[in-house]
């Protein structure tokens, strides 16, 4: 793989990705009035995030049970209104511990 080949391909990827992100952000300046569109844009982050968590989170660790432990810990702490960083670190720690314990039985 030559340097010009790699540079040109990386540039194309970067350009396409940047344009997709930049154009709507720069061009849409006024408030959208349509209630359906406004509601849609309000719900979109929650639907995207929810779909990113499930089912992918279940397969992100070495077995589904440690993932379920992490999911449960994160869910409980989130419902208690803990900070993002607290929820994230506790979920990671719980998965680490769960994997250690599960490792004892395998």
């Amino acid at each position, binding site marked *: 793989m030559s340097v010009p080949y790699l540079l040109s391909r990386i540039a194309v990827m*970067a350009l396409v990705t940047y344009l997709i992100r930049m154009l709507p952000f720069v061009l849409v300046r006024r408030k959208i009035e349509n209630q359906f569109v406004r509601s849609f844009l309000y719900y979109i982050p929650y*639907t995207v995030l929810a779909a990113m968590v499930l089912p992918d989170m279940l397969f992100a660790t070495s077995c589904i049970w440690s993932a379920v432990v992490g999911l449960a810990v994160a869910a409980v702490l989130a419902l208690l209104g803990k900070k993002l960083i607290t929820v994230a670190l506790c979920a990671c720690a719980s998965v680490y511990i769960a994997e250690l314990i599960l490792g004892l039985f395998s």
Partner: protein
Amino acid sequence: MKRGLRDGIPIFLGYLSVSFSFGIAAVSKALPVWSVILTSLTNLTSAGQLAGVSLIAVFAGIGELALTQLIINIRYALMSLSLSQHVDASMTTGHRLLCAFFMTDEIFALCRAQEKPVSNRYMYGVGLISAFGWGLGTTLGALAGGILPETVRIALNPALYAMFIAIVLPQAKKERAVFWVAGLSAGLHCVVRLAPGIRALSPGFALILCAVAAACVGAWLFPKKEV
């Protein structure tokens, strides 16, 4: 800016582990280390980059490469559109040109979930620490496959997902509509990804399809008076 940097720490941790895996995967496709790092620094997107280096490795056409990026990353256009409705007056055209680079799933979600419209400084804070994590993780992964023990690397994987949960669930508790809409989206996605037959759909496309469908149902059944 400081608040953005602090709020971005979970994204930093999550990106560190995801990009670490990306670094390992990309180098294993015989791409030189510098090109893998450059890809991460200029693209800042997980699924797109992974698909991209796979195509580069097999000398695919430039048009195919561009089209693949367009399909996988088109969801960012939707996010940019959504966030354009939730920024304050400090977000001038110049700042929008720069901030748009940081429009990833995670950064968008964090900014959109802020109670008040976000300023350019907040988005720079979140964006810079996240991009730093992405670049650092890629570099570490590309340079040496085994820097972190496998057990630690795996335990870092849920960081991003946990953060998503921490964004969605408190709002779902407060607002019944968000609960149903987010639940519908996750349920649809499980069916589309796991049901035999339709599993062949590309992951990026399946995600956006489910998210858009659920948000449409939400906008139809639970229109928001004030957003």
